[in-house]
């Protein structure tokens, strides 16, 4: 009997499908929104009262964002007895959010007790959806004692209800002196046709929007939709001319080190740690037209199995000594001002190449920003639920197309 299908078989299938189709008009439900502040506070109190200490904690973080030998984590374990599982699973906020949101929305734990999220769209979505646990303020003793005042009063998370900063950093241009002989200074260097096929741009729409806006000379914090479209046009021109090799998440560092990419959008500290660990000689600058400044924050996702241990770990990093070790390794802006003196004294007592490295960190303009620097660095475009789909509709096709 041949296996040729008959018209009847196809019709049978078609009929069944049509019947099922009409029945399948169900949609995907959204998640419930957050309650009022007062209710939220008392709910948080009740939550934390019911929690008990545990012996393990799982920490999801970005790569190149902690001291390479994990000494800070080992010290934590030595002091508290809590075992830390450290997972470098975050490469950009949108794909990480896309991974955890469906799980949290269906009531499933992500497996992480602590995660580091940038102060952008995903942060506000997580808060609005109630998918993060408000921090236990009573356990933030080191934070209240040692964090700089700017970090204790932030506009996008007043009162630090849901997060405290991990590190702050800037997005600028990184390049490889082996292939680029004239050091870049301007954002137009990313549009330089001489580098065609060897330019990297970031795939996060929020990052790339800022650079597009800098290219056309607009301040992202006060930009209009028309200006977004002009920025997107400039970005599309860059892509159409074959200048951009790829849109990268954090993997730009991989391509830059390999030499596939000669110049790319980059995060300030990544270059530093890459040079330190792999012996490369990559350079980083903030373009004169401007760069982006952002803050990455420690948050506790809902259904975390070890929230108390997570709080302990969060507060651990606000001890000046731990914050100093971290900053020395990652070269990002620290929320603890006392760190600068500690690094200076570390540099004074160090020898050889270590000494040079520490002195560089102690005075690095990327870590200790001046007022002029702050003026040049801008935050992301402020996105609300109203303009979110417009914003994404304009910038996503640049990256995805």
């Amino acid at each position, binding site marked *: 009997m041949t296996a040729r299908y008959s018209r009847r078989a196809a019709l049978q299938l078609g009929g069944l499908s049509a019947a099922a189709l009409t029945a399948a008009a*169900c949609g995907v439900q*959204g998640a419930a929104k957050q309650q009022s502040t007062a209710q939220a506070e008392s709910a948080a109190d009740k939550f934390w009262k019911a929690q008990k200490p545990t012996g393990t904690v799982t920490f999801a973080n970005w790569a190149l964002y902690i001291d390479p030998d994990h000494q800070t984590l080992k010290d934590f374990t030595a002091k508290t007895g809590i075992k830390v599982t450290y997972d470098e699973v975050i490469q950009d906020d949108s794909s990480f959010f*896309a991974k955890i*949101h469906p799980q949290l929305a269906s009531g499933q734990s992500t497996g992480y007790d602590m995660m580091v999220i940038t102060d952008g769209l995903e942060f506000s979505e997580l808060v609005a959806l109630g998918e993060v646990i408000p921090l236990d303020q009573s356990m933030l003793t080191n934070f209240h004692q040692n964090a700089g005042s700017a970090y204790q009063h932030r506009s996008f998370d007043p009162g630090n209800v849901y997060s405290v900063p991990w590190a702050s950093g800037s997005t600028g241009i990184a390049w490889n002196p082996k292939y680029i002989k004239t050091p870049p200074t301007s954002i137009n260097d990313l549009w330089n046709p001489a580098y065609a096929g060897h330019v990297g741009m970031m795939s996060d729409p929020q990052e790339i929007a800022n650079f597009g806006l800098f290219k056309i000379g607009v301040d992202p914090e006060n930009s209009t939709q028309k200006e977004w479209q002009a920025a997107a046009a400039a970005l599309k021109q860059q892509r159409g001319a074959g200048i951009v090799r790829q849109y990268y998440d954090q993997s730009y560092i991989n391509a830059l080190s*390999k030499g596939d990419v000669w110049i790319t959008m980059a995060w300030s500290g990544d270059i530093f740690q890459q040079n330190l660990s792999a012996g490369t000689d990559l350079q980083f600058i903030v373009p004169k037209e401007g760069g982006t400044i952002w803050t990455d924050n420690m948050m506790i996702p809902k259904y975390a199995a070890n929230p108390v241990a997570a709080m302990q770990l969060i507060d651990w990093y606000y001890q000046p000594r731990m914050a100093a070790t971290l900053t020395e390794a990652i070269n990002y802006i620290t929320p603890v001002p006392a760190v600068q003196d500690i690094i200076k004294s570390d540099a004074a007592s160090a020898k050889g190449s270590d000494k040079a490295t520490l002195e560089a960190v102690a005075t690095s303009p990327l870590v200790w920003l001046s007022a002029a620097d702050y003026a040049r660095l801008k935050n992301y475009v402020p996105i609300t639920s109203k303009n*979110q789909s417009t914003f994404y509709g304009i910038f*996503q*096709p640049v990256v995805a*197309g």
Partner: protein
Amino acid sequence: MKRWRAAAVPYLLILPGGLWLVIFFAIPVIVLISLSTQQGNIVDGFSQTFHFANYASAWDNYHDQFIRSLLYGAIATILCIVLGYPVAYWIAFRGGARKSTYLFLLLLPFFVSFVLRTVSWQYFLSDNGILLSPLKSAGILPENFRILATGTAVVGGLTYNYLPFMVLPIYVALERIDPRLVEAAQDLYATRAAAFRRVVLPLSLPGLFAGVLLTFVPVAADYVNAAILGGTGNTMIGNIIQDEFLTVQDYPTGAALSFMLMAILLIGMFSYARVLGTDEVLEVAAR
């Protein structure tokens, strides 16, 4: 009574597996189709509004990628035929006792995860890697020459990863050809080339068509090769679908694109099945 029970046996046998496929294959596809006409966002949820404009906007934004995917699919399939047919021919007709060994050698690399294989290609073809660095130092190639992040690399990767899907069906068909037919042709004064053209080739066509089907469909829908080996101008529709579902979380657009891809390929698949039957394909899958 016994006859009734005997008649029920095939249905009972099919029931568990069939049910599994219905629940986890047929119904999800229907959910996908239903999702493609919904609106909303991942945070507030999606609801069914029969918004067929999703298809129009998906096509507007991404028709380049669709066409590119079909184009890459066609080129890779043709390359697979060109590269693979001689191999299948040689193993089937001249392999002798060592046929299985040759097939085995051919399939050996596919024991390793295909992501790992493709990533190994990425390292091998890197701008300053093992292959290009010595050539550049020797001055044979210009400094900014590159293979990666081009359409060539993507098509090369696709051809590499899907070659067995072409070789095996052709081999199966060729192996079934009685060599005495070829010899008979030669006895009738046909040259080797003519014998091939008029005896072997036509008899191998069912295998060739099965190979085309088993190669073109997965190649056109692939996204891993484009992601690892390609650049900004090489995204395929698979990359867009993956992005829509896993990063942007615009499920309706992703579903619309998925359905369009499936429809395009399905039309091809079923016309093929209608003309040539599903036997060949099922048989090759059994190998």
